[in-house]
């Protein structure tokens, strides 16, 4: 590709004229990718809101059975991981490959903690037969014992009504699909970070070339923001 007279560094693909053009393209592409991700999750959020309005009591009850402590803890963990990710991007911009490795590892660790907590929460739902699907069995006594029915609805709700149990099932369908999709995105992000680790270990990043770290950072922050919406919608709304 000796077609241009200016120097053509290894990390500059042949079809770009300058490092800047390449970086801007990558960043713009990532934002477009995030736009489509918003629409992807948007479909789920829309469905959730529709049914939340349709069955407020059942959804509030289902929501009360979630562990607000674990949810809050995970929110903190995830926000922390966004900080470490931002620090990794900063390290990449200054070309400190050792620091990149350190902060990426920290981000991966926090991400794994989040997923670990999610496993604990799923296990709890499994124990109480709240996992959506054929195994779902609505246990009215458990609901009463946990005092999950919001006080404002207490007089209007008959927890033994099978229709009510079905609607709680609908809440858990959304809970598992939405948090499952979110977890899948995190697993993909952690996978991408392994690739970044290899590149950083080979000292590939520097002030001229840090797009991969920055793009992974954008992606990670996006996944973080999805959780920032999921947490209040699933755990907090209608809490008593």
């Amino acid at each position, binding site marked *: 590709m000796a*077609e241009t007279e200016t120097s053509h560094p290894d990390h500059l*693909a*042949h*079809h770009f*004229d300058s490092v800047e*053009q390449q970086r*801007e*393209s990558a960043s*713009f*592409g990532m934002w*477009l*990718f995030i*736009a*489509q*991700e918003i*629409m*992807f*999750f*948007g*479909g*789920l959020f*829309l*469905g959730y809101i*529709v*049914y939340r309005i*349709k*069955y407020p009591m*059942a959804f509030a009850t289902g929501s009360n059975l979630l562990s607000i402590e674990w949810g809050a803890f995970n929110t903190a963990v995830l926000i922390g991981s966004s900080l470490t990710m931002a620090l990794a991007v900063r390290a990449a911009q200054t070309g400190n490959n050792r620091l990149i490795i350190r902060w990426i590892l920290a981000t991966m660790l926090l991400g794994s903690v989040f997923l670990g907590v999610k496993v604990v929460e799923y296990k709890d739902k499994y124990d109480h037969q709240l996992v*959506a*699907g*054929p195994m779902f069995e609505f246990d009215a006594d458990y609901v009463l014992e946990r005092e999950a029915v919001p006080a404002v609805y207490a007089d209007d709700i008959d927890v033994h009504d099978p*229709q009510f149990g*079905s*609607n709680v*099932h*609908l809440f858990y*369908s*959304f809970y*598992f*699909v939405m948090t499952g999709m979110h977890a899948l995105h995190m697993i993909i992000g952690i996978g991408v970070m392994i690739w970044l680790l290899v590149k950083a270990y080979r000292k590939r990043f520097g002030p001229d070339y840090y797009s991969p770290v920055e793009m992974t950072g954008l992606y990670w922050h996006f996944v973080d923001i999805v959780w920032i919406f999921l947490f209040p919608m699933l755990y907090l709304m209608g809490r008593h």
Partner: protein
Amino acid sequence: MESGDTKRKHYLNIENTPQSWLLTLDHKRIGILYLVTILLFFFLGGVAAVLFRLELLTPDAHLVEHETYNRLFTMHGVTMIFFFLIPSIPAVLGNFLLPIMIGARDMAFPRINLASWYVFTAGGLFGLAAIVFGGVDTGWTFYTPYSSTYANSNVILAALGIFIAGFASIMTGLNFIVTIHKMRAPGLTWFRLPLFIWGQYATAIIMILGTPVIAITVLLVGIERLFGVGIFDPAIGGDPLLFQHLFWFYSHPAVYIMILPGMGVISEVIACFSRKRIFGYHVVAFSSLAIAILGFFVWGHHMFVSSQSMYAGMIFSILSFLVAIPSAIKVFNWTATLYKGSISLDTPMLYALGFIGLFTIGGLTGLFLATMAINIHVHDTYFVVAHFHYVMVGGMLMAFLGGIHFWWPKMFGRMYPEAWGRFAAIVIFVGFNLTFFPQFILGYLGMPRRYHVYPEEFQVLNVMSTAGASILGAGYLMVFVYLVWSLFKGRRSVSNPWCAAGLEWRVSSPPPQHNFKKAPVVDRDAYDYTDEDVYKSDYDSGGTSDG
């Protein structure tokens, strides 16, 4: 195929090992890979159409029973829409031409571009598997609960196929937008861009913002089938109608994925064969964006009879009428371009003129359907079938064929036989109208779509339709045969056989591997046909000996 060629190296002959094709990052080769793949799906969808058109020759079930019939029309719809029409112009002509037209050496993300073809092919294989294992009987719309609670066919396989192929669409759209924004040649401002590029840009917006919604929707249907987690399941309070809302939120804009790129092709062809700048360039460019954006707010017109509130229906009806404005702007401006132009009726131009007429009929009958009272009368009848075939086949497929003929010499360096080309274009036009015009009447008289039997009084019109389909099929076959023939025996093409404006005509035919030796500098508007001499000289300034 180029063994007897001169020494000149171009993208086709530079290397011809299997891996040089399967691992290519060259946008031109990826376009060719797409062309071959979608032709396979076009053939499959066509075979299904032949079979059910044969069944409809007689009022009774002579050839197939209702179960097979349902699977045939579903196979036709799914393959034609998701695996042929949506990728047709963007992934084939768009991939091939977009970087050259804007003076770039490649797409912004060549690897994503190649990945999109693999993802598309993988999705296509799932779709094929669904057909091989017995097909799907839900119709291409996959309405719940046909596709969920009461599904009795390979819904999961087909849904997965569409889900996966959707990502190919997103990748293509993303690549287009970034490339158009960041890779334009010096001097190529937004309002010097060919209208083909504007069309692709508008399409790419829909691909990025619409496709993820269908992805999550079919994923939810899949999850419902696989794990029994029901979000559309009325048994636990879910609403099957939510599926229709989500489905049409994508699938109505997707209808514009299936027309906007075609409109881009028509603008190129009309300008070239009337030797004039497109009348009202700016409004034609913006009308593409207007169609893309308005298209996101009209989905409810598919649901006038599905318990949607009357007031929602009225709003969707009005919004649907609004789409007619940018569409009509295009038609009027193309017509105004023809006025006082020096028109030549080569094959691409025949397709373009056919497009204008057929798209106008398809579009105007769309207004009938957007009117609530008429919609209730003709809902789910052959009137609807005829309407969208006038847009998709009479519009998009005509544009695709016109574009393929127009850029064929650029893509392969050979001319197709012109006489055969014109003849086939006329055969296709006649066959198309004979197939689908009777269906407007059938629908108006009340024949519902998706039934394999019908009352006897409908037979004459159905026989006409089937006869038309045979002529149409023969026309397609003719095109296929002479195009393949021309790959080997066609007259060699010069760089600019049509004396057309546009950067793609300034590189040799076929183009060199990296398109331009030196980035071209653009100093004139698109379709600047005032200075004819510029295009008459066959200049290969783009570089014949790159690499």
